């Protein structure tokens, strides 16, 4: 089907045309720009989440400290966890997926470019909605079942950050009934529940988009088992999102209904079952942790081969292990509930299921080491981070296995031992992996290289800071430090290590500052990268850097895994690569064609409607929070009308403007693509 088949019946607005400046970013449907937007937003939230963590750490540096009030502390760890998971790692992964997925599979864009823009805007507004709790949210003292009103925390001095206490404070898994209407009255928790709901919507739309992209948009010859591992992991993550988000959506609706409309799903006083929430949350939450780690594993699988100058060892094993992790990930959720009083049969079953995940994960680890084995390891910054990932993730994974040993977990659960585990996998794993990717693909993004020297300073500072922060937490946990604790008594003997942890956190912060400086400077003044700075293997490097708007002038025709590498290298009898004599000429040709396409290329036109549509959603959700008041109802109506208008506009606007090719030379040729 081509867009020429019909003329737009009415054009309410003129189509956006700007290709530079603010408007171009507000209306873009280019997957690369959307990726960049995701990336900066995610990093912004990383800094916010990090600052929250630093505040937590200052409070915990000493026993019985009074730096933060209890209310502020509880709000901060809740927002820290929520931010890092939903507003940092997920969108940062989405940034990579958006930017890279089409490039990796040799496509011009994702299947539904406008839906892609919609996902981004929904995400952004979801994040803003969630954070607006700091301004609009309220916490009021709970009322006991017997009708006695509790007391709020004493205010503390102006330096005690008590104003932060008016925000969600139930932990990132919001256990019921503490998060219910009875024990968390006030609107803060509504912001949390509805904010996560909005963010989930954004991810669900992305997931569908990526799945269709992978199955329908690959370049010729790019069979599934020729896709780069990162594209594979994107696919796997998309399926994880697809199947786990509806679960949390229902769970969050139940919370929201309990809080807003008087249902009693989790109200123990009316017979509701608080454990049901835990099942639903973790049935989502455990797949979620693989949603967080698999993209990083994909990145590492791209980086290690390039810097070892060897193909990925056991490509298909790595791919299938990724899929197996995802599949098994749906069968282990109750390992977060070993202490909840589920039957021993269930505990044993979930323990066994949990342990099996170590097998496919081990397969990945060992294949990565097989990749390194016998290679010519260039320890540039991306490689350092990838190796850091390998080492740190293994530690986190092994402590994960110790949790799977149920009776041990009864001791460990809800202590800093768990906090240590998940920071090793989340920070040591996902964050190290993401940094590897940032250094690796920075040239693709900007055409320049990041400073390797500063990169190494960043790496080593972060590596030290990270271990100093999170290694002692194992110890603290086993010495009895429960998590989510605002204060601990001096007699517990926990103080020295807590101080070390806090120092470590500040070293991490320093390292991040180094990174930010490096990024800023390299963008302006970094060495020019050229098209293929790393002598890479995959087809995204077959386009000039920075990537031109149309990605590929001629989409590659892929003949095998690591297509690009094999265009550059032949193998001798020993199986060692020999650079083809024509390689340099080919690169020059690719660069030239990439910049100056010979055939006209038709790209999806920018559109206002994703942005407009996304504006409506938070309005409706604000309206729901205040639905008892007239203006709350008005907000719902206004939001709905905006969405409806956007929908109509969207429906009437063809994806590609048939008679306004965006460059004069590009008339006539139609690219096949969907209409959404």
């Amino acid at each position, binding site marked *: 089907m081509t867009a020429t088949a019909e003329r737009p019946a009415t054009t309410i607005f003129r189509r956006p045309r700007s290709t530079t400046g603010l408007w171009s970013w507000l209306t873009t449907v280019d997957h690369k720009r959307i990726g960049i937007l995701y990336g900066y937003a995610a990093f912004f939230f990383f800094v916010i989440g990090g600052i929250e963590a630093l505040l937590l750490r200052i409070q915990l540096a000493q026993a019985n400290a009074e730096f933060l009030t*209890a209310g502020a502390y*509880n709000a901060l760890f809740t927002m820290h966890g929520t931010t890092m998971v939903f507003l940092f790692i997920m969108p940062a992964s989405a940034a990579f997926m958006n930017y890279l997925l089409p490039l990796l599979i040799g496509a011009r864009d994702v299947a539904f470019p406008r839906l892609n823009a919609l996902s981004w805007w929904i995400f952004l507004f979801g994040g803003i909605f969630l954070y607006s709790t700091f301004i609009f949210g309220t916490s009021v*003292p*709970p009322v006991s*079942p*017997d*009708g*006695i009103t509790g*007391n*709020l925390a*004493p205010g503390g001095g102006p330096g005690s950050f008590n104003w932060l206490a008016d925000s969600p404070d139930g932990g990132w898994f919001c*256990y019921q009934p*503490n998060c219910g209407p*009875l024990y968390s009255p006030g609107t803060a928790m509504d912001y949390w529940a509805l904010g996560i709901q909005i963010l989930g919507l954004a991810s669900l739309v992305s997931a569908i988009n990526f799945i269709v992209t992978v199955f329908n948009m690959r370049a010729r010859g790019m069979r599934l088992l020729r896709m780069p591992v990162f594209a594979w992991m994107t696919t796997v993550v998309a399926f994880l999102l697809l199947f786990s988000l509806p679960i949390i959506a229902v769970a969050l609706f139940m919370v929201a209904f309990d809080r807003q409309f008087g249902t009693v799903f989790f109200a123990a006083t009316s017979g509701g079952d*608080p454990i049901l929430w835990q099942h639903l949350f973790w049935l989502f939450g455990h797949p979620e942790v693989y949603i967080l780690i698999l993209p990083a594993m994909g990145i590492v699988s791209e980086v290690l081969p390039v810097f070892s*100058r*060897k193909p990925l060892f056991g490509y298909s094993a790595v791919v299938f292990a990724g899929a197996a992790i995802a599949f098994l990930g749906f069968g282990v959720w109750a390992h977060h509930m070993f*202490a909840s*009083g589920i039957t021993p049969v269930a505990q*044993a079953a979930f323990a*066994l299921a949990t342990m099996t995940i*170590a*097998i496919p994960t081990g*397969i990945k680890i060992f*294949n990565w*080491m*097989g990749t390194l084995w*016998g*290679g010519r*390891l260039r*320890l540039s910054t991306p490689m350092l981070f990838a190796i850091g990932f*390998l*080492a740190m993730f*293994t*530690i986190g994974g*092994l402590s994960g*296995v110790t949790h*799977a*040993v149920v*009776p*041990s*977990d*009864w*001791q*460990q*659960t*809800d*202590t800093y031992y768990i906090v240590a585990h998940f920071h090793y996998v989340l920070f040591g794993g996902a964050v190290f992996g993401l940094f590897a990717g940032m250094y690796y693909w920075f040239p693709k993004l900007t055409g320049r290289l990041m400073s390797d020297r500063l990169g190494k*300073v960043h790496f*080593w500072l972060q590596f030290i800071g990270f271990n*100093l922060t999170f290694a*002692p937490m194992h110890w603290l946990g*086993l*010495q*009895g430090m429960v998590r989510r*604790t605002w204060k*601990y008594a*001096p007699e517990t003997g926990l103080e020295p*290590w807590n101080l070390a942890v806090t120092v470590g956190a500040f070293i991490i912060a320093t390292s991040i500052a180094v990174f930010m400086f490096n990024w800023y400077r390299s963008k302006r003044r970094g060495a020019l990268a050229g098209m293929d700075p790393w002598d890479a293997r995959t087809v995204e490097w077959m386009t000039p850097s920075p990537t031109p708007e149309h990605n590929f002038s001629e989409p590659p025709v892929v003949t095998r895994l690591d297509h690009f590498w094999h265009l550059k290298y032949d193998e001798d009898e020993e*199986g060692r690569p020999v650079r083809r004599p024509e390689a340099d000429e080919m690169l020059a040709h690719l660069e030239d064609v990439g910049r100056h396409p010979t055939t006209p290329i038709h790209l999806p036109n920018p559109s206002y409607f994703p942005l407009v549509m996304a504006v409506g959603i938070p309005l409706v959700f604000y309206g729901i929070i205040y639905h008892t008041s007239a203006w709350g109802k008005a907000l719902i109506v206004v939001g709905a009308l905006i969405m409806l208008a956007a929908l109509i506009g969207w429906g009437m606007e063809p994806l590609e403007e048939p008679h306004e090719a965006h460059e004069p030379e590009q008339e006539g040729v139609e690219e096949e693509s969907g209409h959404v």
Partner: protein
Amino acid sequence: MLRLIRGATVAAMALLLGACQLIGNEDAPLTTFRPAGPNAERIDDLFWLVFWIATAIFVLVMGALVLILFVFRDRKKEDAREPKQLHGSPKLEVLWTVIPALILAVIAVPTVSSVFELTGCEDDSMRVELTGHQWWFEFHYPDQGVDTANVLVIPAGEEVCLEMTSDDVLHNFWVPALHGKRYLVPGQTTLLRLEASQPGEFWGHCAEFCGLSHSLMRTRVQAVSRAEFDEWVAAQLAPANLPADGTPEFDGYQVFLNKGCTQCHTIRFDDEASSNIVLSELFNGPDLTHFASRNVFAGAVLPEGGETHEQALARWLADPPNVKPGSFMPNLALTAQEIEDLIAFLESNT
């Protein structure tokens, strides 16, 4: 610069490990490493088994990684040869699937068996009903008829079965020296068995986030000999002493009656005196009949920092939510005199 940082890393790691070793012997009352009863010991054994297996894997994997980095690092020599392009090895894939599976099987067997061994209670063990409140623990001994709070007294060498529930949100009862954790779920009953081999006092903590003062919801378990336990029960069953007229204790008693304390707290006197107190069903606060017999109170948080029981009580009565943010016991605006009298009265209830 870089070399410096790298050197520092290695040194820091070594220090870290060493320091762990040192502080291992330190006196941490909540540590999981000093099990004091059969349940915790069983867990401890299991932990160490798994710990050493994990450490072995860790050492092997890290050792191999460091070795690889050392051997295969590109030394940027001109004549360096390109590496052989290995694509994988089905044999190795099988190997590193099977070996971890076998290791896990080794871990799985004791895991599963101990789960069954350590869950639930023996039928004939002594029962204690435990109810979690924001932010204190209430203990009721149904067979003995004793009510107390925050300090659980048990006979050493005997199994005690906690039948646990919660009055409000989730809590999680944890005494590391005696057993792992178990949730207290409103509307449901969960079981946890505790046994201390020797007399002693053990610290505990609520481990599930339960609102504003979760970090100040602690507990103690005191294991005593059977004889002492029986004595303790007898003492707890005795009614509180009605103070004689004109003493400071009596003034405190009057304050207690008149300042609304009885809305939430029970003190059991002998029958005649009890009839003086209108016990309101309004709210359930800790039973204060033998308040002074408990070495810690207010969620086992007070006294703290070396203060005496009396000093702590004075601080508590002056402004409970200041000691414990969010506490359901309000600041009753007591005068210094009233507080003094109350202390005299409450401290006499041993």
